[in-house]
């Protein structure tokens, strides 16, 4: 469905000059500042998969998504989405993808939500009968009925995000790009968004690319993740593989009689009862627990390693 090969994006900005004739100077001089945002990224995503695209701020996530949607033209490399090259065939590509940017709404700010959805239906040439059906389904799945006639600027963030999701899926695109869809949402709203994504993927076999900082999103939705940093792929595979390959050792955490808490690393293959016996020989243990490494600590460790 999505094929990306040695994808590279170098941003070239003309160096800005200040002063009254600054813009003119900027225009005529050929001095540029260059920054490589995406540096030889390759991956393939088959139909119907939900992939988490992760990385710290400035890693190149959004730039990749913008190239996949055809907003940006790659500097080098190859992209194919559903057999099309997005930047060359932007409008046809736009019909096949739904996009949600968590930070920025796609809806018409001053109009009631229903008007935005109608306009989206017009823009994507959705026939009237299919529109009615789609709208009904979106209202049921996302609970839009309560605020369908409220101007978007008066919606809460959670309501707005549900509106945005409806707008992105109204024309049944086979591919959905979500850029931080749960940012700033409360627990309930996050849950609603995740359920909608899972449902869309299950029923419509929609291929989903999800960039997020919230690892709970990833754990709830994705089986595969692509981890990038500084524009390069650090890891591409199943979450389970990631945890086995990079997981820091499990830890035995004990609370001692004098209210002190201590943690001991459990080396791979070592016996836990032996460790407990050794610790209790030296201290009086009041409570103990074994900490499994979570996804967050795994990812932290990978970033830390790539820093070196």
């Amino acid at each position, binding site marked *: 469905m999505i094929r990306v090969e040695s994808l590279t994006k170098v941003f070239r900005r003309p160096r800005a000059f200040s002063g009254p004739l600054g*813009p003119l100077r900027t*225009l005529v001089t050929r001095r540029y500042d260059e920054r490589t945002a995406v540096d030889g990224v390759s991956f393939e995503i088959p139909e119907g998969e939900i992939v988490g695209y992760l990385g710290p701020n400035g890693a190149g996530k959004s730039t990749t998504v913008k190239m996949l949607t055809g907003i940006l033209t790659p500097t080098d490399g190859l992209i194919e989405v559903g057999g099309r090259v997005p930047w060359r065939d932007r409008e046809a590509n736009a019909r096949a993808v739904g996009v949600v*940017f968590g930070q*920025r709404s796609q809806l018409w700010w001053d109009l009631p939500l229903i008007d935005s959805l109608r306009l989206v239906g017009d823009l994507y040439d959705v026939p009237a009968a299919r529109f009615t059906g789609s709208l009904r389904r979106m209202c049921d799945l996302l609970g839009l009925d309560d605020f369908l006639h409220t101007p978007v600027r008066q919606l809460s963030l959670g309501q707005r995000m549900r509106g945005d999701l409806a707008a992105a899926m109204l024309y049944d695109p086979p591919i959905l790009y979500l850029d931080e869809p749960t940012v700033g949402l409360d627990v309930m709203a996050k849950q609603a968004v995740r359920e909608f994504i899972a449902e869309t993927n299950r029923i419509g076999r929609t291929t989903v690319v999800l960039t997020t900082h919230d690892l709970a999103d990833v754990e709830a939705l994705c089986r595969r993740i692509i981890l990038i940093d500084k524009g390069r792929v650090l890891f591409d595979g199943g979450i389970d593989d990631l945890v086995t390959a990079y997981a820091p050792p499990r830890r035995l955490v004990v609370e001692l009689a004098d209210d002190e808490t201590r943690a001991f690393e459990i080396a791979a293959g070592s016996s836990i009862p032996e460790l407990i016996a050794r610790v209790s020989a030296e201290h009086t243990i009041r409570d103990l627990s074994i900490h499994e490494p979570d996804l967050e600590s795994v990812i932290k460790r990978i970033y830390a390693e790539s820093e070196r």
Partner: protein
Amino acid sequence: MAEVLRTLRLYGRLQRAAARGALQYRLNLLIGVVTGVVYQGSGFAFVWVVMHTFPSMGGWSLREVAFLYGLRLTAHALYVLPFSSLIGLEWLVREGELDRVLLRPLNPLVQIMAKRLGVGQVGDLLAGVVLLVIAVPPLNPGMILFCLAAVVGGALVEAAVSLALASLSLRALNTLALRAFADDLFSKFGSYPMGVFGGAARWALTFVLPVAFVAYVPASVLLDRTGELIVPAPVACGSPLLGVALFALAYRVWRRQLRHYQSTGS
């Protein structure tokens, strides 16, 4: 053809949506129209005062200058009315609004044009048309057609310059000051007979920035004054076509620069 109809239909729908949004701020809208009329009215009042002090301007009578002024103003309003959101292109780029435009299956320029109708320019259009009707010389049907073509051509000349310069803001350049400067040249020098300017200025306003072609050249044709032009009469008669050609060229520049659009970080 079907594609053109679809584009027009969607332009209409988006424009109506933008108008519905703008109608939520009614007072703002009213002030825009009223200031448009007052501003342009004061501009012409200035010419009227000057002409009463000196009966002619570069050999043109008050009526002839009024006709030229009206022609320029109507052409200008006809350009700004659909293209007013181009003025805010830097803002659209900086706020990432252009990303949203590029995600939709519709011509990006059409979407940007549909973001806003320059209602403030309705005042300009009114003032321009009134001047034209009052000051129009007797014209035969052919000349009336030429007059209409000249208004559209003049609008396209201004639109072309504005679009070509605006395209550069897609490469993260701020051209707002440059565009304001060009706009100023059009309004300051486009509304008067060029004979009043010196040779070098006149040459530059004809061949460097085609200010003369917006209204002065076609007005000279309609007033039978082609003798004083610095371009041959046949060229003057073809001036509406220049607008079409320049706009086509500017649109190519726009498409090219869109490929170089860099979006914003986030």
